[in-house]
C-alpha cells in the first residue's frame, strides 16, 4: 500500500524536476541525454565529497594547527 503512494510521490518529484529544469519541453532522447549527464555529474560530486573531503579537511586542520604552534 505504501509503495503505491511512494511511487506516485516519486513520479510527482520527477515531474517537478522536469518542469523546473525546463526539460519538459524537450524530446525524450534529449531528456535522456540531459538526465545521464546530470546524474553522472551528481554521482561524481557525491563520490568525490565522500572520498576526499574528510582527508582534505584533516590535512588542512593539521597544517593550520602547525602554523599556529610555530608562531
Amino acid at each position, binding site marked *: 500500500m505504501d509503495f503505491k503512494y511512494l511511487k506516485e510521490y516519486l513520479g510527482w518529484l520527477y515531474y517537478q524536476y522536469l518542469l523546473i529544469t525546463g526539460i519538459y*519541453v524537450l524530446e525524450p532522447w534529449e531528456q535522456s541525454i540531459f538526465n545521464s549527464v546530470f546524474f553522472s555529474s551528481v554521482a561524481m560530486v557525491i563520490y568525490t565529497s565522500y572520498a576526499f573531503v574528510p582527508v582534505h579537511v584533516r590535512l588542512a586542520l593539521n597544517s593550520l594547527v602547525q602554523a599556529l604552534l610555530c608562531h
Partner: protein
Amino acid sequence: MEATVFLGTFNDADIFWYPSPDLCLYYNHVSEVFGQFLRPHDLVIALTCTVNCGTLYRQVPESFENPPMYVAVMTYLGFGIVTLFGYFRDFLRAVGLEKCHIAREREEQKDFVPLYQDFENFYTRNLYMRVRDNWNRPICSLPGPVFDVMERVSPDYNWTFSLTGKTIDDVINMGSYNYLGFAENDGDFLKTVADRTQQYGLGVCSTRQEMGNLAIHEELEQLVATFLGVESSMIFGMGFATNSMNIPALVGKGCLILSDELNHTSLILGARLSGATIWVFKHNNMQSLERLLREAVCSGQPRTHRPWRKVLIMVEGIYSMEGSVVRLPDIVALKKKYKAYLYLDEAHSIGAVGPTGRGVTELFGLDPSDIDVMMGTFTKSFGAAGGYIAGKKELVDYLRSHSHSAVYASAMSPPVTEQILRAMKCIMGLDGTTVGKVHQLAENTRYFRSRLQEMGFIIYGNDDSPVVPILLYMPGKVVAFSRAMLKRKIGVVVVGFPATPITEARARFCLSAAHTKAMLDQVLFDLNELGDDLCLKFSRRKYSPRPQQHNNNDDTDFELDS
C-alpha cells in the same frame, strides 16, 4: 512640507492626504501584515482630488508582487538549459544529422546574400516550435463562455499538425475578450442585425470618403458620442488600424510623443509611422512622466531647442498584459499643468469598467472633455470589430478628411455596425431591456480575483480589471499548465517571452459577464488543484478568507470634511 491629514486605513494601509494646488498625490505606508519589505513600486495606493470639488475618488490598489528569489533562478536555469539544447540541435541540423524543417534557400542560391536570418529565429526554432501546440488551437464554435476545440495530434513534435476529426466539446473559455458576453448567436437577439443585412447587404465596397458613408455609420457615430459624453466621434473598420492610421494624422515631425512602456503594438506602430520623437516613460509611473514633461518644456526639440509643436501623452485604459489601470486623474492634472495633449486608448476598458460601462473616465469620475482624444475598439466588449475616435467636433472633422483610414480603408460593414448599435443600446439601457451585464462582469471580476489571491497565486493588476494575469514564470510550467487545463476542459491563453519580460511568463484569464458562478467555481477548483500539482502558488502574502465583497460602485470610503 504642508500638513498632512490622516484619513484612515484601507486594506491595512494607512492613507494620508497632502493638499496641493492642482495635484494631490500620496503614497501609502505599508504595514507589517505583508510580512516582507515591499518597494514602493509593489503596492501603491494613490488618490487624487481637485481642490474645487473636495470629494475623494477611491482608487483600487494595484499589486505587482515579486516572487521569491529561487523562482527567478529556476526560470533562468530552465531557459539556459533549453538554449544549450537549442545550440546542440542547430549543430545537428547544420552538420546534416537531422532533417531541417525550417525555410532554407535553394542549393543554387547558397552563394547569394542570405535570405533567412537564422540567428534571429533561434528562439522560434528551438523553443516555440517544440511547444506550439498550446497556441493557435482551432476552434469550431462560437467563442462564447464555452466553446469547442478541435483536437490535433503531431507526429513530429509540433512541426506539423493533423486534425483527428474529433472535437473537445464544452471547453470553458477563459481567453476570449468577451467581457460583456455579446459574442452570441441567438437568433432572437440578432434579429436587428439580420434585418440590416437584408437592407444594406454585407460589403460596403467603398471607403468612407467616397461612396461608403452609410446612414447607419452616422447613427453609430452619434450613439458613440452620446455614450461617451463627447461632442462627436468617428468609427473605423479595424481596431488596430484606428491607432496606426490616425496617430500619423494627429502628430508629425517636430512633435513629441510620451508613450507608456507597455503600450500596445498598434500605438507604437502609429507613433513610429508619424515621424514624431518618441520618449518612453515607466509603466504608470507619474514621476517618470513628469520628469519627461519638464525636460520637454525646458529643453525643447533636440538640436534647435525650439519648443515642441505638440506634446502627446499616449496611455491605455487597461493594459491587457498586466491588468493594470492607468492613473488617469494624475495624468490629467499633469497634462493641464504642462499643457500637453492626452490620447487614451480604451480598447479593453470601454464597456468593461466603470459603474455603467463608460470606461476609465467614468471609473475615476472625470469629465470626458478633459481627455483630448478618446480612442477605443469594438472588438472586446461589444462583440464586433472596428474602432472609434471621439472628442471635440473640430478634431473629428479634421480626422474625417485627413485620416488614412477614412480615405483609403473600406468602411465598416453594416451587420457589424448594427451589432455595435445593438450592444451599445443594451449597455445604455435604451432598448428597454434591463440587462445588468456590466454589474455581472464587476461581480465576476471581484469574486475571481479575491479567490485567486486567497489561494496564493501571484496576480498582477488592479482589482477592478477583468483581465487577470496569473504569473507562472518557468517555461516548463507555462506549457504544462496550458496542456493540463485543456485536459480539464478549460481553455486558457498563456503568454511567454517575447510578449512578456523573460522572467514573467503568465497565463491570462479574461473574465466575461457570460460566465456563470458555476463555471468560475469549476475553473477555480481546477486552478487550485493544478496550483498544488505544479507548485504555482508563489505568493508570500497572507490573505484571510473574506466573505465575498459586495458591489460598491459609487460609495467612497472617505469623505473630506470640508
